[in-house]
């Protein structure tokens, strides 16, 4: 077990929110077609409120802090927030589209000791990337930002969200990342909007395309290992936790709402009315999330994929129940291994089992 895993175990044992994702704004200068946020400002926390939240997180033991949005640099006080975060010695990662990062911003991030900057790139072709962001010239500006950040010695990662609009583009983005000397991550997950609107799910890539991604050695490494059938689950799996959301991780909106995770919009408290530590320790919602073990999942506990599935409780929650299946993850498990999930088999049975005797009028 690595030192980092040991620390995670320790944090879990002690109930410490080791990693927090804080969206400082939902405002954005891009209008990405797959974005799950509403970009209007409904009363963001002030600089002083955010600094106070950071102090509370430091007191609670948070070590990893992700600052994201919206676009973080839409806040004029972003560097004041970042400076405060670093003064409180968080390990800070920034998620940004980069279009407002020039040499001065990159230098400031380096001087403040930012751990990593993650920039979203959808294609190495401007006509495809810019059509997704709906901001003309955005690819060029994002690539320039990566170069500025790299020239300052910062660690940069390209995040490539895969959807119907850019399905054929990942090899080009991966090559671009290699040419720029930065890390590359691919994510085929499109989530419903944070208000529950599912219209953007039409952008999810098809099962056949997911299959080709999972069987591409340039993306997954050892295909045989990645796509291996799941081993039979043992007691340790059935007693296991679904993920770190609400256990060692939390998400905070620009309005001070606390959720278990950015993909798990279960309102658990608000920092304008309560202290973070009180929400973290006493919220009935977070306690409910923490009570769930794999054996408690009515459908998934019967599934052969239970030990290896990437089931996201947040996506399950948005689908109807945090104890239910996440269909998107069922599809991933199926496309990875060729074995349908218990949820897929259940749905197939429901679709094929009609009444035994059907009486229809004869059209004459």
């Amino acid at each position, binding site marked *: 077990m690595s030192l980092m895993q040991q*620390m995670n175990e*320790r944090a879990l044992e002690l109930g410490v929110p080791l990693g927090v994702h804080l969206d400082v704004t939902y405002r954005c200068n891009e209008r990405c077609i797959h974005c799950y946020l509403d970009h209007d400002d409904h009363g963001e926390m002030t600089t002083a409120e955010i600094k106070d939240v950071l102090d509370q997180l430091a007191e609670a*033991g948070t070590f990893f802090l992700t600052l994201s949005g919206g676009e973080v640099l839409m806040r004029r006080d972003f560097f004041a927030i970042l400076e405060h975060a670093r003064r409180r*010695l968080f390990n800070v990662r920034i998620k940004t589209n980069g279009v407002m990062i020039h040499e001065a911003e990159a230098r400031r991030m380096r001087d403040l*000791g930012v*751990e990593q900057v993650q920039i979203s790139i959808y294609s190495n072709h401007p006509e495809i990337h810019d059509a997704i962001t709906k901001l003309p010239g955005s690819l060029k500006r994002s690539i320039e930002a990566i170069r500025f950040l790299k020239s300052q010695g910062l660690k940069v990662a390209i995040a490539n969200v895969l959807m119907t609009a850019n399905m054929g583009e990942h090899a080009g983005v991966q090559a671009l990342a290699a040419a720029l000397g930065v890390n590359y991550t691919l994510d085929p997950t499109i989530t419903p909007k944070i208000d529950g609107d599912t219209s953007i799910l039409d952008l999810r890539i098809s099962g056949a395309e997911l299959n080709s991604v999972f069987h591409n050695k340039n993306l997954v490494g050892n295909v045989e290992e990645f796509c291996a059938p799941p081993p039979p689950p043992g007691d340790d799996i059935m007693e296991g936790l679904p993920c770190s959301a609400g256990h060692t991780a939390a998400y905070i909106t620009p309005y001070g709402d606390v959720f278990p995770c950015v993909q798990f919009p279960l309102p658990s408290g608000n920092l304008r009315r309560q202290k973070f530590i009180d929400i973290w320790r006493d919220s009935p919602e977070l306690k409910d999330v923490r009570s769930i073990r794999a054996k408690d999942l009515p459908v998934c506990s019967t599934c052969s994929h239970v030990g290896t599935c990437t089931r996201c409780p947040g996506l399950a929650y948005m689908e109807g129940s945090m104890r239910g299946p996440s269909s998107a993850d069922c599809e991933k498990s199926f496309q990875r291994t060729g074995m349908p999930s218990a949820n897929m088999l259940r749905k197939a049975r429901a679709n094929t089992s009609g009444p035994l005797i059907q009486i229809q009028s004869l059209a004459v």
Partner: protein
Amino acid sequence: MSEKYIARSTAIAARMLGGEMMVMSAVDSTFFTLNEVATAIWQAADGRTPLSEIVARYVCENFDVEPEIARCDAEQFVDELSQHRILLVSDHPFENPPVEAA
């Protein structure tokens, strides 16, 4: 032997977790956990107090250890962390105060 002064770098992230200090270098992402004695030295690394005094005041007085062994261990600890630029070492006091101790 000349005196050593130690200061915490600004290019680190740090937090106490269950009595141990987690420290990560922003320069090379090296991750350390410091035990109780090392944490005491880390927290006292204000850039102005000589290492010998830190060892005498924060280690020998609070932990059951021989002064000579404590001094050797402290020197080794400081050498290792300074190689990763997590601790800064100088033979004279630092002018600017270091970052908070987390």
